């Protein structure tokens, strides 16, 4: 296992942890944060490939991660606002209770 594979393993595990959190917890905030973790894991992959890639494309990975972080920030802001809005309407932020979109 070389360094790159180590990094990738690290990111995979982080992704799995995030996924588990997002699936297991019923609190919407934690679910959102789990998603953030998954995003972070993806970012790690980008950086890892950038760092160890043979062709060493100029800074593409870094730039992608920057954009990804920006999008994550936006997602967090909107997500948290949604959580607050849901809370205001239903007095709970438990995801299993928020099933108004049921068909």
């Amino acid at each position, binding site marked *: 296992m070389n*360094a*790159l*594979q180590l*990094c990738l*393993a690290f990111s*995979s*595990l*982080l*992704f*799995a*942890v*995030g*996924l*588990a*959190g*997002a*699936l*297991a*917890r*019923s*609190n919407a*905030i934690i679910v*959102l*944060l789990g998603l953030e*973790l998954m995003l*972070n894991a993806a970012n*790690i992959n980008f950086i*890892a490939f*950038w*760092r*160890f890639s*043979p*062709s*060493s494309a100029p*800074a593409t990975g*870094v*730039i992608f991660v*920057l*954009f990804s*972080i*920006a*999008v*994550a*920030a*936006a*997602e*967090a*802001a*909107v997500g*948290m*606002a949604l*959580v*607050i809005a849901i*809370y*205001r309407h239903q*007095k*709970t*932020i*438990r995801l*299993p209770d928020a099933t108004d979109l049921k068909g």
Partner: protein
Amino acid sequence: MSAALAIVALATLGSAAAAMLGRSLLRSIFMLAVSWAGVAAFYMWAGAQFVAFAQVLIYLGAISMVALFAVLLTRQSRDEASPPPAALRRAILAVVAAAGVAAVLLWAVAHSPLAVSGSLAPATSVRQLGFDLMGRHAAALLVVGVLLTIALLGAVVLAADGAQERPGDEP
């Protein structure tokens, strides 16, 4: 090198797992902050200084704050009040699914022939990054800017719904 990586990875994973498992929401967030800091450390390790600082600035400085606020504003929520059997079932299912995904990923990582180039990190100065951002990726940068603006406004509108709060009060 690998040792540093291992330490960082373990710290990150550990704190993340603790965050996902923890009972207390706030503690979870603090643990997550640690985990994010770990990711930043990984970026430092990989030589992506700028990204590392951005990670700290945004995740520690902003997202964790937002999460904290969300937690505090929704404190009256019946926290984890689902009946134990259901929660347990969901937890088991979650762990199984996550484990499956992890297994697949790890298997893929392990079995992929991944070549590693130099041991030296590719040098990327902030100046070069800036030129790239403003040059080849200018359009994307603009789009992200618009996205962030809209997200900010949208978040304000969503959260301020009904209550007569000033937009500025919303972090």
